[in-house]
């Protein structure tokens, strides 16, 4: 299949602000790699179920219990943040449709 990457769109989806030059270079590299890996499309996988997990396990749960020991100290958490205000994390304004 022809691979048509709108690399600027992909970079926007991935929240990566790249220069025009970088976009161009990454676009080329991604295309090359994808053309290589696209060979798997030649394999006949008719009727083959996908494996999303190496062990066929189901139903792993926790019970509905509060585990106070795992709750973090706010001071320790906020100390890692680039910007805070009072007891909150602080970020620049969002666009409405962000």
């Amino acid at each position, binding site marked *: 299949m022809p691979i048509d990457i709108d690399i600027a769109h992909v970079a926007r989806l991935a929240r990566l602000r790249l220069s025009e030059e970088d976009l161009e270079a990454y676009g080329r590299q991604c295309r090359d790699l994808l053309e290589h890996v696209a060979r798997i499309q030649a394999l006949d996988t008719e009727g083959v179920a996908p494996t999303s997990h190496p062990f066929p396990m189901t139903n792993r*749960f926790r019970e509905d219990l509060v585990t106070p020991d795992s709750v973090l100290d706010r001071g320790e958490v906020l100390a890692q943040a680039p910007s805070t205000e009072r007891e909150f994390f602080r970020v620049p*304004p*969002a666009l409405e*449709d962000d």
Partner: protein
Amino acid sequence: MSWEAVIGLETHVELSTRSKMFCGCPARFDAPPNTNVCPVCLGLPGALPVPNREAINRIIRIGLALNCSVTGRSVFHRKNYFYADLPKNYQISQFDLPVCVDGYLDVGGDHPGRVGIERVHQEEDTGKSTHMGGDGRISAAEYSLLDFNRSGVPLVEIVTRPDIRSAAQARAYAQELRLLVEALGVSDARLEEGSIRFDANVSVRPGPEAPLGTKVEIKNMNSFRSLERAVAFEIGRQTACLDGGERIVMETRHWDEEAGVTRGGRTKEGSSDYRYFPDPDLVPLELDQDWKDEMAALLPELPARRRSRYEGMGIDPAQAATLAGADVHLRGLFEGAVEAGARPQQAGNWVSGEVVAALRSSGRESLADSPLSGPNLARLLAMVEDSTLSGLAAREVLAGVLAGEGTPEEVASARDLLQISDAGVLEAAVEEVTADHTEEFARLCSGEQKLIGFFVGQVMRRTRGKADPKLAGRLIRERAGL
């Protein structure tokens, strides 16, 4: 041209589990900011989700109550989008294999109909953004503050088919769904606190046979009223657009409660490519028959059934709907009173009328732990029936019982409210009032019947409300020779 509205609703219900969906933090977000957080719900590097079994149980019960089939195999997907209050920048949700599919909810009232349920699936909530500056409007904010207490609280999303045809019906569906969720006891089900949130997809088309029009998603409605108003506004906006020869743009619009309009946002290209894929941190759910049976056995009586049961007792439909929608304590009181022999219609009227009023004036939140029991209410109503208490006195007795002063009999005698049904005692009272109002009495004797009410009132006053009004009336009539 006349247009037909086509509406589908997506409802997010926050589950009232003890802990969050994927971690052991308390699922309470009224705590001080950023205190109910852990590596998992903060999306710290290396943290992993482990699903809460009880949340899945509740999703199954919601699905069963909505007449859905529970799928045998269900998968958690990652829904990828960036937002500051979404810590992992993907939400664990479900895609092609939700927990429940293909159900319906019957909506009664003035807009009856069957609303198809497409799916019921698991989700997790985001943190909370507070937009600062620019009078709090997101579009003008200078910056935002983030609290992650709500991050990871379990959500269930209920998606209807586009079966709703009017704003009023959308509201009726939403109200019925809230009743159902409340009856199931799976959520606090409070709109004002955001534990139930509705999004509406609205489109219009020239007629029932026409293909579906371009749909617009409306968000930010936080009451049934605003849901109805927003949908009605949007239908009007779209038909006006089309009548004016314009085209509808596929977009998300926000309801502005104060202005009473929906507003479009800045629509960003490609923002809806969520790149769903199965979450490799989680394994599939296998929902076998035993599990489904176990959940089905836990289903309580649902609002629609309860309504028809109440109607079957001989209660009128409006009263039955009110009672069926009342809280569990009021319903318990009603059912207890009927069980103890009260007439259903009378017990119903009292519970949804006098009892609610008395509660309100007593300052109590609900009947929980109150001394007013079903048998107590039944006895009170029996005393009204056999004229031991007047209606007025009965309300006072009710207040006394609620205040913990004892049984209805004890309160009535302690407050000296028992009705005077002794003809001898009342005879004396009648004699006195007719003597005090000779002129009126003469007019009564000459046939002015409406003055009976006046004299009964006088007797009631003289006996401080304790006279049996029927007996008093009879005695007055006899004395006047009527």
